[in-house]
């Protein structure tokens, strides 16, 4: 029960913060008065959509600050970003319907009244600010949702959504409404909005001021195959402290190099002074990383993530199932090397397209020889088809009650999850790491 509640902690966190303004608003007047006729009902619905939309948007901005407590509550920053996409979409839809419902209520008076309500009103600048905020959001939405930009261009446009929120913040602060009539509601909403803006300011400080980051230099570069490189980094100053399975955001300080941050799982173990990352050229940025030079300066922000952490399984320690697809092997390399110390037992499945693309197989098989708690199974999809839950069950035995950790391409993770659930595995026992920060 505790674990079930724990798994829902993110939604409880988001829900409580967003619903509080609604509750305050509801208790301002008898509920019947809010819905006594069609005009009042439409007014109330318009207000509800505004209260929820604004609160969710504020929470959404706070989520992007990458606070470590959020990483813990959400069981990994990758899950924070999954919810960020969802909440941002819901907030936007609610904010779209806010002026729409308020305008439609005036149709009972006249179409002209409804039309005038929608037009910018130069005599009511708070209302005009709301219009501007919404228009900016829609323009930015068009750029970020419907046009396929390179990541750094996409991110540039995406940042301005906070500007739209700032303008909306002043709309909320100064519009004559139930918010202005109730000190408690007003204080709560403005405080929440201010917190969101402060969180965004903190994010900018970290990103551009390198606040709280760890400095490293590239000490070794090893080519594993035509697409994959392993980088070793020596700390300059205090080293980052991490757990096996976690990841960090790396940004490169090298001439002619983009300073974008991208997440990479640690391949090294915490006991090592050097940290190691293995990078496959999958996208524009990772292709550029092939040009990294020895001695290049790199900032590391983190660590983040809870992938592979045994306590998040919520179960007593027992044999685990680890499944890696392609470059998704990286967190398992760290976890496997740490097994002797952690005492964990695991059946590790490595899935690659072909032997030419496999990495760390020999390294992990050697580890398995030394550690009877680790069993390694290699699977090549070109010859054997995709890895299935049937094969895992055939080789590892009954899966019920076993924690399953999967890292790899999203279609692989989603497909295996469905197959395991069909086999009766509890969805709460399946842990995956999706790296989709866009």
């Amino acid at each position, binding site marked *: 029960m505790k674990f079930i509640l724990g798994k829902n902690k993110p939604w409880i966190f988001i829900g409580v913060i967003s619903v509080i303004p609604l509750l305050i608003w509801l208790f301002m007047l008898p509920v019947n008065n809010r819905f006594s006729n069609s005009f009042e009902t439409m007014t109330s619905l318009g207000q509800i959509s505004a209260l929820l939309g604004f609160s969710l948007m504020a929470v959404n901005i706070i989520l992007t600050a990458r606070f470590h407590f959020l990483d813990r509550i959400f069981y990994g920053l990758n899950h924070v970003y999954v919810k960020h996409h969802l909440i941002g979409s819901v907030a936007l839809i609610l904010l779209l319907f806010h002026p*729409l419902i308020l305008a439609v209520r005036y149709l009972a008076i006249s*179409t*002209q009244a409804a039309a005038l309500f929608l037009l910018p009103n130069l005599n009511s600048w708070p209302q005009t600010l709301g219009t501007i905020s919404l228009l900016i959001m829609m323009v930015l*939405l068009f750029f970020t949702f419907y046009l396929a930009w390179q990541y750094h261009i996409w991110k540039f446009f995406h940042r301005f959504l906070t500007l739209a929120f700032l303008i909306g913040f002043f709309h909320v602060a100064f519009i004559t409404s139930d918010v202005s009539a109730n000190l408690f509601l007003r204080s709560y909403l403005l405080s929440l909005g201010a917190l969101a803006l402060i969180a965004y300011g903190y994010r900018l400080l970290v990103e551009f001021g390198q606040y709280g980051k760890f400095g490293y230099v590239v000490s070794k570069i090893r080519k594993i195959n035509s697409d994959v490189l392993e980088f070793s980094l020596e700390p300059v100053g205090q080293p980052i402290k991490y757990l096996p399975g976690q990841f960090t955001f790396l940004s490169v300080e090298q001439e002619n190099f983009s300073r974008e941050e991208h997440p990479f799982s640690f391949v090294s173990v915490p006991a090592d002074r050097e940290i190691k990352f293995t990078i496959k050229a999958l996208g524009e940025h990772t292709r550029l990383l092939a040009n990294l030079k020895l001695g290049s300066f790199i900032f590391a922000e983190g660590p983040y993530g809870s992938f592979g952490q045994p306590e998040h399984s919520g179960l007593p320690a027992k044999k685990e199932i680890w499944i890696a697809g392609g470059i998704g092997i990286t967190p398992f390399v760290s976890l496997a090397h740490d097994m002797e110390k952690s005492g964990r037992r695991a059946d590790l499945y490595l899935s690659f397209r072909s032997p030419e693309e496999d990495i760390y197989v020999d390294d992990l098989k050697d580890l398995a020889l030394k550690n009877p708690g680790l069993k390694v199974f290699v699977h090549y999809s070109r010859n054997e088809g995709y890895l299935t839950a049937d094969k895992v069950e055939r080789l590892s035995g009954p899966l019920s009650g076993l924690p399953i950790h999967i890292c790899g391409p999203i279609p692989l993770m989603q497909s295996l999850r469905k197959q395991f659930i069909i086999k009766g595995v509890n969805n709460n026992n399946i842990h995956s790491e999706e790296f989709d920060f866009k």
Partner: protein
Amino acid sequence: MKNYITISLFIFWAVVVAILTAGLVFYNNNNTPLPITANSGTNSTTTNTIASTPVGSNTISGSKANKTSAPRVTSPANINTAQTPVITPAPAPTNNSVVLSAAEVAKHNTASDCWMILSGKVYNFTSFIPSHPGGSSMVPYCGRDGTSSFVSGPPHRHSSFADSLLPNYYIGDLNQAVSANQTPLLSPPNTSPALPANLQNGDNEGNDD
């Protein structure tokens, strides 16, 4: 979620365009009164000679034309004096006509039958009261001249958007004889829901948004 956002955006723009288009199509210059100001004329003959201002205009221009005909409002103490209409003998009522005199307006002084004088014009606000953002705070002005409250409060100065709603409730000018056949405007409509008891004494101020 992308599909939901796309659908929401489509609905949003479809409704906005529909409302704006309908508002333009049904736009009516003829019933537009002057925006309400403190210095607007209160004599019906004076009012009739002033050109009307298009609804939706964000400028308050009526006062310029009436500067020489009404004293400027400078303090709350003399608002009522300044706003007291110059009483000219009302035209004699004829069969099937009603004269919109101050005495006639005073008969319609409840939430269920609410007439009001604003800058020399008479309005039937009965059906509007449930929609009034200020709640029942306008009810005490039923049957009376509410110009000063409308223009400068309390509780606050009404916006040009509020001005734009007035044509929907306009009956006629003060002391004007109107046909008694205008029953939708003159008769208290039966469709307005009664205000809840705790709002009828004007003790709860609603809001615009």
